[in-house]
């Protein structure tokens, strides 16, 4: 009789043996950090030594920090422009790649491979393209076709700097969306299009009534993914503008980096990250509400 529970325990232990190695790192580097982050945000906490409990002091301080809200505004505006733009460009490229063509690999390399390339290689190259010299590639060609009269400094005004950041971002990350969309396009049964053709539907109608509904789930997944990505915008700002001019390209993560790692105010940085979490959550809920609404209206 004593043997059965023992075997059962042994069996259960074996099961946990499969999970434990991963669970250990999950607890150490994912779960614990969340708790530490929460605790940290209530302390005046610097890396070396000092730890004083200050209650909601960090949250209040950040709440009243104009530079933080400027960074929030910048990040939100960036997301609102770059996310839809990436999705539209991604859809167009995916539709192109879904055609029957020779040498598709070259198109994949051109459109999709940049998304897998590292920030240093890509961003130093783009910075070189945006060089302020008359011989910088962007300056040279814009002057040649007559849009510009003289060489300009591309990161001098905030609109120009953001345009550069957004263009580079879309160029860089769209490939991943293209792969997602291509997968979805290839799952649409071809009979649907044939039936629509018999009914005399044009390509635009087919796209609207067949392609888009079939892609709805993937599109939603991609919007969520891209909003998370856009709220994490850091590398482009770090390489191009350093947050300038006058903080107008400073993003939330860049501000967190300045507060937490340049000024070493870990408590304040933790509070910033919780604000960011709240903002992402609000964005996520709005998206969810919009999705349920669109599904309902589609079902009616």
């Amino acid at each position, binding site marked *: 009789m004593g043997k059965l529970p023992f075997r059962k325990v042994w069996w*259960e232990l074996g*099961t946990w043996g*499969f*999970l434990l*190695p*991963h*669970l250990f*790192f*999950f607890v150490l*580097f*994912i779960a614990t*950090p*969340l708790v530490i*982050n929460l605790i940290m945000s209530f302390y005046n906490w610097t890396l070396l030594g000092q730890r004083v409990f200050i209650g909601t002091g960090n949250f209040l301080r950040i709440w009243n920090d104009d530079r933080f809200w400027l960074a929030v505004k910048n990040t939100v505006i960036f997301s609102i422009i770059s996310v839809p733009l990436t999705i539209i460009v991604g859809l167009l490229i995916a539709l192109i790649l879904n*055609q*029957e*063509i*020779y*040498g598709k690999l*070259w*198109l994949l390399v*051109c*459109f*999709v*491979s940049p998304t*897998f*390339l590292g*920030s*240093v*290689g*890509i961003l*130093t*190259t783009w910075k*070189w393209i945006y060089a302020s010299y*008359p*011989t910088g590639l962007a300056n*040279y060609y814009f002057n*040649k076709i007559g849009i510009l009269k003289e060489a300009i400094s591309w990161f001098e005004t905030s609109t120009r700097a953001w345009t550069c950041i957004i263009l580079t971002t879309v*160029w860089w990350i769209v490939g991943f969306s293209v792969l*997602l969309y291509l*997968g*979805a396009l290839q799952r649409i049964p071809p009979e649907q299009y044939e039936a629509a053709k018999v009914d005399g539907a044009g390509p635009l109608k087919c796209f609207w009534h067949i392609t888009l509904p079939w892609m709805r789930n*993937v599109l939603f997944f*991609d919007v969520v993914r891209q909003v*998370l990505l856009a*709220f*994490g915008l*850091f*590398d482009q700002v770090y390489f191009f503008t350093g947050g300038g001019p006058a903080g107008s390209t400073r993003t*939330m993560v860049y501000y*967190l*980096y300045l507060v*937490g*790692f340049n000024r070493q105010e*870990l408590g304040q940085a*933790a509070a910033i*990250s919780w604000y*960011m*979490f709240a903002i992402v959550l609000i964005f*996520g809920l709005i998206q969810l509400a919009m999705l349920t609404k669109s599904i309902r209206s589609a079902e009616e």
Partner: protein
Amino acid sequence: MRQDNIFIALKKNKKTKKFVISIILWIFASFWFIPIFWMLSTSFKSTTVAVSENPPHWIPKEITSENYKLVFAPASGINITRGIINSLIVAVLSTLLVLVIATPAAYALSRLKFRGKNAIFWSYVAILAFPGVLFLVPNYFIIYGLGLIDTFSALILPGLGSTFGVFLLRQYMLGISRELEDAAWIDGCSRFRFLLTIVIPFVKPALLVLGLMTFLGSWNSFLWPLLVLNSPEKLTLPIALVRFSAGWGDPFRGIGPLMAGAFISVAPTLVIFVLFHRYLMQGISLGSLGKG
């Protein structure tokens, strides 16, 4: 009228049509790829020429390899060769460890029954929706507390807790048929052997995708190594390149060697993409299916 004729000719010959469309798209796509061409072109020019030549030449008038020589000569105190080796060590170790740790966990979460399984699985999924920046500050603190600042462990270990790989593999493992598993039980096959001989071969494509994504993620990683690395002999390639370019007051004064370094950093990724793009495509649409 002439245009009409062309269209009629195109309609007659489907293959010609496909060919013409392909060529148009190739040219269009090549325009998209201009930054990479420009990087490559600049890397073969001397810096003085690159900065001053007007108009800029796409094919350098004088092709020089001096930039590549300069990158590999550790004159500036930043050793790029060392950076490449470090990046490779970190990326390979990360990839192997992620695969070794995530596979049994995914197996437990997909095929085994135990108490708390649902709670663990849902916390693994829920965490995917948290922005990564939440973990930045406390993980720095943990790594600091463990005395791992400025070590390779600081780059490798935090990634092992990521739940994305476990989730991806689990979705794939759900496809293994019950009958197969039951047959293995009857044969007295242990769970460990079942994992090794049946599950792993079955999920090979997913393992390949997870391996590729982990390798590329580690190879390209920027912000985290920037925070935790310090000594010159431990820098990974991206950080070494940033330090390398910081050596010139105006970064464009060293644009030749910098573009050579940039090309060295993207070339392995391009090769991997060409070789494995099929698997990447497959794996990415699989990962989204589960979540979407």
